[in-house]
């Protein structure tokens, strides 16, 4: 156990951060049937904004400001890039998402000059702590609890509020929901607001651990979070969270597999860690082929 513990810890921590991004993906997909490729970049933009804001403002001002700005950006992206294409073919809106992602990355590259920015230290969660044989940051331990708390709040929101009911209705049947008098644009905006907020929270946790913020640092976590969402069954929030933890843990186990085998007396030395990303995608393909709706996905009602 003591051998596996550090890898598990890293896996749970990074899994929790993926989970916060994955919720945004899965909610948007549930409602709009859109893979919001720009979501990972919203996460990155949140990180970049935090770097610049905290350079001139104290943390208790810059952090809420960053959260608000990220939410506004998420809202604005939906209004500017997705809403005009609501009646267009699904491929167009997905391409629009890719375009937004491209724009956000290039904008961030332009502003940061393409240089890695050092994320500010967040007091309380940046410190190191010892757990048995493993040393890690406090944020690693905080992440899973925070994720569970946020998910709990979100599930409450979806199940017990009016807007939550509207969201469920829209994701069940878009057209009928509209006919029933649900203000569909408000629901979609609310989805993006929640998704961006969680991505912003995720960025604080993620970049406190991995402090170099570059204009591409949203791409890989974004992609993996999406994979997590698909893995757990897209549209399902608990599914996304569990999928994210599975992805996070499995990628860290792959990274450490050789070392663990080495300690068990099996010396491979073939560089298995090479496949830490590839294994994520392999898992994805396997689950898609075996159970296309994901672990917790509802039966697909593919509209023709």
């Amino acid at each position, binding site marked *: 156990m003591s051998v596996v513990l550090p890898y598990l810890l890293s896996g749970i921590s990074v899994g929790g951060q993926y989970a916060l991004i994955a919720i945004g993906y899965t909610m948007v997909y549930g409602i709009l049937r859109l893979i919001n490729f720009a979501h990972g970049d919203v996460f990155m933009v949140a990180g970049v904004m935090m770097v610049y804001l905290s350079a001139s403002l104290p943390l208790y001002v810059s952090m809420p400001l960053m959260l608000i700005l990220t939410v506004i950006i998420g809202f604005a992206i939906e209004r500017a890039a997705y809403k005009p294409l609501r009646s267009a073919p699904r491929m167009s809106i997905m391409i629009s998402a890719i375009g937004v992602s491209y724009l956000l990355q290039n904008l961030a590259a332009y502003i940061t*000059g393409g240089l890695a920015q050092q994320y500010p230290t967040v007091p309380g969660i940046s410190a190191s702590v010892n757990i048995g044989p493993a040393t890690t940051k406090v944020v690693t331990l905080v992440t899973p609890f925070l994720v569970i708390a946020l998910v709990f709040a979100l599930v409450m929101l979806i199940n017990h509020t009016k807007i939550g009911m509207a969201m469920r209705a829209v994701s069940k049947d878009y057209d009928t929901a509209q006919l029933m008098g649900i203000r569909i644009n408000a629901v979609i905006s609310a989805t993006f607001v929640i998704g961006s907020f969680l991505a912003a929270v995720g960025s604080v946790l993620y970049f406190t651990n991995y402090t*170099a913020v570059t204009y591409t640092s949203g791409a890989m976590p974004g992609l993996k979070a999406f994979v997590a969402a698909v893995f757990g069954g897209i549209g399902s929030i608990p599914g996304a969270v569990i999928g994210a933890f599975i992805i996070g843990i499995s990628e860290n186990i792959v990274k450490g597999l050789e070392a663990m085998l080495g300690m068990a007396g099996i010396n491979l030395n073939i560089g298995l860690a090479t496949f830490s990303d590839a294994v994520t995608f392999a898992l994805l393909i396997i689950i898609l082929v075996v159970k296309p709706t994901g672990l917790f996905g509802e039966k697909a009602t593919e509209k023709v």
Partner: protein
Amino acid sequence: MKSYKRVLALMLAMAMMVCVFAACGSDAASAPAASSAEAAASGDAAAAPAAAGDKVVKIGVYEPASGDNGAGGKQETLGMQYANQETPTVEIGGETYSVQLEIVDNQSSTDKGPSAAQQLVSAGVSVVLGSYGSGVSIAASDVFKNGGVPAIGVTCTNPQVTEGNDHYFRICFLDPFQGTVLANYASAELGAKKAYCLSKLGDDYSAGLCNYFKEAFTGLGGEVVEESFPEGNSDFTSYITNAKSQGCEVFFAPVSTEAAANIIEQASAQGLGMPMLAGDTWDSNVITGAAQGKDVEIIVTTFYQEGGNAAFDEGFKAYLNSDSTAMTNNGGNDMVAAVSAMGYDAYYVALEALKAAGSTDAAAVQAALPGVTYTGVSGAIAFNETGDAIRDTAYVKKANTETGAWDFVAEQKVG
């Protein structure tokens, strides 16, 4: 016929773009030589009116300003820009030419590199400097060859850049040398028996350097654990755990600076407990910035030691402080990066070559280059038969985690 209109609209938009382009291009070219470094490099539009002023010789700067190696490429370019500001003219064949730097961004990408290189050749440069990163240099090599333009590699350390090429030269040391120096240091000075080598997947620089390190280190009786991480990876905690759990005594990670910043942060948080070793890429203020106040021991080998030439250091710092853009490109402070010193030297080697050629003709410059010798701030430079600089010294330095600066450790030579 909606599509007709659309094509028309697109053409119109293109025409507009070209107008702006022409407007900016042509007036930038007639700007005085002092600002020529920043002047727009836009092919023919820039070339024509320039002849109206005094004589101009163009030196191409083929460096990344974006992508993985953007940070290093910018610092290298800064050295050249500073040198250009310091010595904006050169005597060629008894006449004074003003030197104009043509700067393009190769985006650290082998598929974007060739067209960037062609841009330089088309602009009529006499010699090209660059690039930071060996892969892009190799990808552009044939473009320079076909264009008849010689190139001087500044910090591309892969042997394959110059090998078999008459037109590619290089002023820095090579990976086999650097790998050996590092292995010697790890074995002799740090007394390590087992080393952990971390390279980036798909990055020929870190893979190559790890390879040479491994060769030398196992030759000295050591043992090596090799691992690589995929691109876009920020989570190094498991790799650090691997190094610790396998009882390694030195952590060798010659990777790009942005990965390095993450590695340092996580190594400190997890209590790596062994020295970290890296090559010339880590000689950057990104590293010292990340290491400041952390519990890590970082040792690098490099081309140049800040303080090695007081006049250069002072001048370069003054240049950075006088120009806010330059300061930003240098990463926000005025620390002298080794690659800047190399860029500075490369510029003067190019001037020497132009003087020796006695003409701005690229072919003449290429013919003159093998015979050029120059003593720069990073040491004496002379080329051997493959076009590589004959260098036998690397500087070893250590990051001071209190001051956020580099401390000089030793000069390493390999017989």
